[in-house]
């Protein structure tokens, strides 16, 4: 078992090590560089506990990874042996970046004096729109998160071979589309930033919805997403949506301990033990959000964070400022229209203006979401509030039949039974 602190350090160093290797051996391709960094991380896991940690861990990793690249280069183009021997005479350190890389401070964000955005650059590469969402997630967790293929596979409950396939396919795709490191210019970086934020959001959701217990590795994904969002925020502190995403993840993650019961059952927001919400995470999220709202143009992540903050402000569920939440959802529906937002808005409007108002909004979604459990779950909730228990029971039963989540099904069946006369 790797000690936790060493694992954390290595995962934190992974992006800057990969970035340094790519800068100097990028012509050999992203795929090989990424493999070389994984090998260096494994070597550190094996050697450091026994031989002691090097004084400059990042420089050590860059050296080892670079050496692998040189070895690979040598074995791959044996026909040009003479040139290689010349290259091999150069000590590995000469292949490295000058002081900037060797002196890397392992604390996240602390290298920002150099103006580099290693984590963001790598995320931009891993989150290219040419890759499927599953490939983006897998590659992000391995190349930027520093997780092994086996760890990513376990988190997604698939065999290691399946995950290895996704990662190598993603790398092949990057090669095909001529992805370069670093990305071409600042305008493109900014334009593609939302893709990166979306992948981090997906990773978080995957972890946040996990039920704990046997799903523990999957639950770690939420923490991993927060960590990566922090790293991006450290590199782009003045981007409102980067800040908004970090705030949203913190405010949502704060409820983690309260969202499932001891038996893994889902506890709805209204019934959660609010005293067990993580106050430090809430305070941090709220402070980040306040700063972003004061200084930047409003965006979808800031709005979602603002909604989470209103929930966090209510000491009891019945104190929730639903008119405020409904107003925020209205803005969100304009900025980021979609069925998920529309459903959540219907709930908020139902709570603020009465269930009938929510049901009216819901009717507009009937055709589009007829086979989606959440439409029926929301309808059941609003019908129950309106006093139509029989119809609510039917809606909850339909929702329970449509969901493919075991805990959701358990919860929805229970709600259906409550209204069964």
């Amino acid at each position, binding site marked *: 078992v790797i000690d936790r602190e060493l694992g954390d350090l290595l995962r934190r160093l992974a992006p800057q090590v990969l970035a340094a290797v790519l800068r100097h051996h990028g012509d050999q391709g992203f795929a090989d560089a990424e493999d070389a960094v994984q090998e260096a991380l494994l070597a550190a896991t094996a050697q450091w506990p026994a031989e002691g940690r090097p004084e400059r861990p990042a420089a050590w990793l860059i050296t080892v990874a670079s050496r692998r690249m040189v070895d690979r280069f040598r074995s791959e183009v044996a026909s040009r042996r003479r040139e290689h021997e010349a290259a091999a005479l150069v000590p590995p350190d000469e292949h490295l970046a000058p002081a900037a890389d060797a002196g890397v401070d392992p604390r996240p964000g602390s290298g920002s004096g150099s103006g580099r955005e290693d984590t963001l650059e790598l995320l931009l590469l891993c989150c290219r729109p040419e890759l*499927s*969402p*599953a*490939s983006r997630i*897998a590659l992000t967790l391995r190349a930027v998160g520093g997780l092994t293929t086996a760890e990513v596979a376990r988190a*997604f*409950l*698939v*065999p290691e071979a*399946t*995950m*290895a*396939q*996704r*990662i190598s*396919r993603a790398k092949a795709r990057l090669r095909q589309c001529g992805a370069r490191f670093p990305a071409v210019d600042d305008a493109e970086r900014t334009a593609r930033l939302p893709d990166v934020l979306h992948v981090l959001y997906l990773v978080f959701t*995957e972890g946040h*919805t*996990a*039920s704990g217990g*046997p*799903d523990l590795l*999957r639950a770690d994904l939420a923490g991993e997403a927060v960590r990566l969002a922090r790293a991006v925020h450290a590199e782009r502190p003045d981007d409102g949506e980067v800040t908004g995403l970090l705030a949203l993840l913190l405010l949502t993650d704060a*409820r983690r301990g309260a*969202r499932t019961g001891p038996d*893994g059952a*889902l506890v*709805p*927001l209204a019934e959660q033990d609010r005293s067990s919400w993580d106050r430090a995470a809430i305070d941090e999220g709220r402070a980040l959000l306040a700063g972003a709202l004061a200084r930047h143009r409003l965006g979808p992540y800031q709005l979602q964070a603002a909604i989470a903050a209103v929930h966090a402000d209510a000491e009891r569920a019945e104190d929730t400022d639903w008119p405020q939440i409904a107003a925020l959802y209205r803005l969100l529906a304009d900025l980021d229209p979609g069925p998920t937002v529309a459903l959540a808005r219907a709930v908020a409007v139902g709570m603020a203006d009465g269930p009938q108002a929510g049901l009216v909004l819901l009717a507009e979604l009937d055709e589009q979401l007829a086979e989606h459990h*959440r439409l029926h*779950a929301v309808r059941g909730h609003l019908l129950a509030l309106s006093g139509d228990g029989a119809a609510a029971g039917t809606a909850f039963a339909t929702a329970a039949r449509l*969901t*493919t*989540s*075991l*805990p*959701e*099904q358990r*919860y*929805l069946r229970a709600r259906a039974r409550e209204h069964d006369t």
Partner: protein
Amino acid sequence: VKYLLLIYGNPANWEHPLYLRDPGFLGLPPEEQAAVTRRAEELHAEVGEAGEFVVGAALASPSSARTFRGRDGVPVSTDGPYPETKEQLAGYVVVDCETPERAYEIAARMPDARFTAVEVRPIMDAAGEEM
């Protein structure tokens, strides 16, 4: 989301892959038979390379099956599958796909979907959203 693809086949000549011995397949001209087989192999490779394939297996003949069935609250065993039908479960594949449409596409492209049947069932997930 993961999907279980249940592949049904004709139990008359139990030799995998079953579709090769299906009367519908045997009635095709040789070049069409070759095309069906080639497309099946391509599908197999495609699902593997995409990182969608999770697990799969071919099942032994239904004649080797033993079924346990409750009778007056007691499990009673009988030889053979349950139920006895023209088409029998021949194998299964679990795929992890981004959309249900993709899982349906994989199922529909299996040769067995043309000659016998492939059933697609979503697999329940242990994770759930806050309500």
